[in-house]
């Protein structure tokens, strides 16, 4: 039934990460601590899931410096945005009454 749902996004933590990043205007990046706060996640847990999303090419994790302080910023990539939209469309199909989607749902 959830065959169309992208397994990379299909986890509670990663779905929430993608939802948050996709809500940012195009080109904007979130610092790691701000993203962590928006998700109420632990640093370790967030890193783990970000790595999976990064490996799939859905997010871009950039390390840099603000003065002497090392900073990590995260943004959704174009591919990530598209994958998230596809995920939403697939979920939408699952939520719509079967009579209207029986063709695509297969």
């Amino acid at each position: 039934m959830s065959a169309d749902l992208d397994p990379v996004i299909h986890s509670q933590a990663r779905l929430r990460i993608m939802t948050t990043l996709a809500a940012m205007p195009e080109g904007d990046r979130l610092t790691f601590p701000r993203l962590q706060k928006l998700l109420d996640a632990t640093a370790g847990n967030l890193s783990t899931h970000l790595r999976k999303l990064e490996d799939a090419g859905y997010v871009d994790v950039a390390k840099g410096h603000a003065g002497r302080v090392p900073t990590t910023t995260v943004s959704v990539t174009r591919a990530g945005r598209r994958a998230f939209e596809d995920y939403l469309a697939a979920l939408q199909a699952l939520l719509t009454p079967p009579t209207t989607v029986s063709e695509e749902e297969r």
Partner: protein
Amino acid sequence: MVDERTPGDPDDLPPDPVALAALIDAQRARTAADTEFAAWLVFGAWGLAWMVGLAGMWAAYTHRIALPFWASGAIFAALLVIAAVVTTVHTVRRTAGIVGPSAKQSAMYGWAWVGVFVGDGALMGALGRLDASPDVSLTVGSIVPALLVGGLYMAGGAAWHSREQFVVGAWICVSTVAAAFVGPPNLLLVMSLAGGGGMLVAAVVARIRRSGRRPSRPHDPGRLS
């Protein structure tokens, strides 16, 4: 059905599509509440400052209350400072940890406010040195900053595609033009009621709209994309 899970993930999959949709909705609401500009707060702070402060100045100027005019002006100035602090703190909190084009845009817009109000202060100083009459100082000192606020709100509305901000700016400009025709001292009352009152109405409307956007219907699939 459960084999979609990436190996090694904790068992954290929401049980069904409805729960997934609710999860997305909740996270969107959380992100919006933390990062979106709260128009109601900013309009409310400025609207209150204008309404109370300008009405106080009008009452002092027309001797309806036993308060020296300079004191009523100081109270208005203090209310404006409070509104500016509320706006600045809110903006800094909202944009903290967000880098990129929108942060640059906000910073440029913020500097536009600083620039025009430093200029307005300089203008008032110049009028003082020219020994302008109280009526001239009152007229210029009220009309010029109000037009700057109206114009900047309209520009902000254009920059952020915010109709509500644009409409408030346009309303302030219209009220200010009306106030200029009314002239001193009643222009203060016009700006208090129409300008300040208009911002307060906008604050209430923005607040109602904001609560209307909260996910009250997590099962509604139409909200997903």
